[in-house]
């Protein structure tokens, strides 16, 4: 395969060119209310050629016999731009990397997977139950005209559930995604057979609970809520392609502008990082999709806007270097600026200390509905599992507290961050055509003072 790719690459006369090959083996099982609804096994591979001259041309095919043709067409497509595009200058690398599977995907047969899901289902009595289990084995070869050549093998496993309980006409739903880069040791890390009955029990209490009170309260958010907030209101607005307007007609732009590096965004105890190198994280990678080594990035540091996420295109436009944030979700997608694992760094407090100092507050342990505007400034999170706190103690469950807040409003009111740290998996959507990439998001328990809730 590498010979073919090199031959194609060598024939391209351009300022910059790359050829990417990806092969994916994937298994998917869906169980709905105890019935195995769908089973699928997919094997596919394909090539993408990207050429940079005046503009950028990109062509992809899963038909090997068309590879030369699409390379020629990519060269022609790269002519279409008024202003010449400049990629950042980077070193070249040659390396091979892979992620270890403790329990190999290839050794887990379909029957065993199905039985696991059916077993989980039997442990639940919720009226609505949907489970999905997906594993992927991805092989990639990347090479570019500057001599970079990266080979990678990444196994990933993810489990998703959605559940709904009804009580006296009321309905409460929950869903969650667990995922790792690795094999079926995922179920050693997260014991779904225990976690889901606990979730169901909590839902059954919440569905009977009173609506969360409206007013101004101290708020403690759990790691799951901290994670989505880090992802939505720090990770996304720090993506340099948004900042530069390249996603304007799709996933939107950013309230951050290039000149805002160093501006205050919130409390000085706030540090939010994006780190593709967290071992076994769902979005783990050693090199990004442009062959740039991965590293930890401090997006918000000590309460200030600190660093943007870059690929070579955005870094070139802003006169800096890529920090290895280029990802493409599939063989037929261009590499664009993406997050990997985005999280609040833990602080100094114990979780108990956060609660002890709350006279009257709300603990939002997890979330259900959420959204954020397209510059990542106005956002909303509705609590799923949530509790009223009085004098440092959890008093009772409350239903659907609503936090509707601006980004600086949230980060500014943080006054204590706990030592704990937990990650949750997600599929982040961006790009056009849509690219769903595997990510983690997370954080510790975080306390905010004087927050208006409804």
């Amino acid at each position: 395969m590498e010979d073919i790719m090199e031959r194609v690459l060598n024939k391209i006369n351009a300022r910059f060119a790359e050829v990417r090959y990806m092969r994916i083996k994937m298994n998917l099982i869906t169980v709905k209310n105890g019935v195995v609804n769908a089973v699928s096994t997919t094997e596919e591979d394909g090539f993408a050629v990207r050429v940079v001259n005046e503009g950028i041309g990109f062509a992809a095919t899963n038909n090997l016999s068309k590879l030369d043709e699409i390379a020629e067409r990519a060269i022609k497509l790269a002519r279409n731009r008024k202003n010449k595009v400049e990629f950042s200058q980077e070193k070249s690398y040659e390396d091979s990397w892979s992620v270890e599977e403790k329990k190999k995907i290839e050794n887990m047969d379909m029957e065993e997977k199905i039985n696991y899901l059916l077993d989980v289902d039997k442990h639940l009595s919720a009226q609505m139950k949907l489970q999905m289990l997906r594993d992927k084995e991805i092989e990639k070869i990347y090479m570019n005209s500057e001599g970079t050549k990266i080979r990678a093998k990444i196994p990933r496993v993810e489990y998703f559930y959605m559940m709904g309980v009804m009580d006296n006409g009321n309905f409460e739903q929950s869903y969650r995604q667990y995922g790792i880069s690795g094999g079926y040791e995922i179920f050693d890390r997260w014991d779904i057979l225990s976690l889901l009955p606990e979730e169901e029990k909590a839902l059954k209490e919440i569905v009977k609970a009173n609506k969360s009170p409206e007013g101004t309260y101290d708020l403690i958010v759990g790691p799951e809520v901290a994670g989505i907030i880090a992802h939505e209101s720090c990770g996304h607005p720090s993506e340099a392609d948004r900042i530069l307007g390249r996603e304007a007609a799709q996933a939107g732009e950013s309230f951050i502008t290039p000149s805002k590096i160093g501006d205050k965004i919130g409390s000085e105890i706030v540090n939010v990082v994006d780190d593709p190198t967290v071992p076994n994280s769902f979005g783990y990678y050693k090199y990004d999709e442009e062959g740039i080594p991965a590293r930890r990035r401090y997006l918000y540091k000590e309460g200030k806007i600190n660093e943007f996420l870059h690929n070579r295109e955005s870094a070139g436009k802003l006169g800096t270097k890529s920090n290895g944030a280029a990802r493409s979700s599939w063989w037929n997608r261009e590499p664009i600026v993406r997050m990997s694992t985005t999280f609040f760094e833990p602080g100094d407090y114990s979780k108990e200390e956060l609660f002890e100092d709350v006279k009257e507050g709300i603990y939002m342990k997890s979330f259900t509905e959420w959204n954020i505007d397209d510059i990542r400034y106005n956002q909303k999170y509705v609590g799923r599992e949530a509790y009223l706190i009085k004098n440092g103690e959890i008093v009772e469950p409350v239903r659907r507290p609503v936090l509707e807040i601006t980004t600086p409003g949230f980060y500014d009111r943080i006054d204590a961050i706990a030592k704990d740290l937990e990650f949750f998996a997600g599929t982040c959507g961006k790009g056009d055509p849509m690219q769903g990439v595997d990510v983690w998001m997370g954080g510790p328990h975080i306390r905010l003072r004087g927050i208006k809730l409804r």
Partner: protein
Amino acid sequence: MDLEKLMDKAQNLGIDEASFILEVREKRQVRFSNNDIDISKLWVERSLDVFISKGKKVFMTTIKNLDKAEELLEKYARILQNLPENKDFYGLNPKKQSYREKKIDYEILDVELEDLTKDVIDGAIEKGAIRAAGVIYRDHVKRKILTNYNSAEDEVANVDIVIRAFNEYRNAGQEAITTAEAKELEDARSIGERTGVIASLGGEPKDGKEGKYKILFHPLAFGSLISYSMHMASAFAVDAGMSFFAGKIGEKAYSEKLTIYDDPTLFSTGYRVFDEEATATQRTPIVEKGIVRNYLHSYSTAQKFNTKTTGNAGIINPNAWQPVVEGGNKSYQDLLSEIDKGLFIVNLWYTRFQDYRNGDFSTIPRDGIFYIENGEIKESWIGIRVTENMQHIFSSVVDVSKEREKVKWWDEVLPSYLPYVLVDGVNITRSKL
């Protein structure tokens, strides 16, 4: 690729029923921002969708390496043998079908995307925008299907144009149109012009205020609500307990001004001759004058619900092809003039549900949020959210316009044909800090 040969092989392998869909696609894209092209893309792809069953055991996949199709089918047949039964599966549609003629405007394949890009950007700038971003797609797909009972062929082509234009205060206007007819692209510049006008109308936007408002939704905005709702009109979602339509067949649940069809017979981007089990597609009323008429069905889900297929397979999970909302008698200007104090919203994004069963959700207006007084635009707003219940929205439709637009957009808007929709008492919230 010889689908008949593959079907013979499937039967020799002990497979009871099979559906094979061969798809050959060439797709082009131009993405642009800051008034210049960012990237031009091309996809040349082929694939074979495979659905096989033995009794109530089912397996589905997509084969991308067609040269290995027969070999892979053997592997999948072995997997099928060992699967548990899907008691919700009732077989493929055995009835012999007759199909509409395929319909394609080949002239659309000659449209130059780079020229369209220049036209729409120029149009936006001429009308006062300072920068524009967007995407233009051209898709050309040939499809061939073979099941144990039917076979058919189809070929479709279409163009999508999305442009978002900004004024100096970052106020935006957006158009996201889709068409299968080249003649509808002859004046592409006007698409850009409309976004420029909307962006310029905004001036310097003010913080919006909470409250209940009469709102005129642009077709693009209402398209977002309809697209999410169509997912819930699928019999799969109803059966799973994840739909606010559940239990409402025959019920006058919504405003009599609201009529929603799934209509793949309308010649546009969602035009389709057959579904994924070779059932001929049809125009299906979902809501007719406020009465819930149908869910979207495959043969199998229809059997479970004791009704007839609507030609919307997905065999396991039926889906809408092209939502259409019936137009009314008044112009959208007339509808605007009926607003004493209210809003005109061009687009919505990030729609999320906290309760699929009852329809509680929120979504964020963008690309033109105008406060209206006495039928006139007074100012543009930012920072608001529609915090609502979908059934309340559908019940509160006051009227719909006679003008309709073919829309499709990145954020979950299916190719749709929709009017402007006036809704009363819509709840608006905003951030508190």
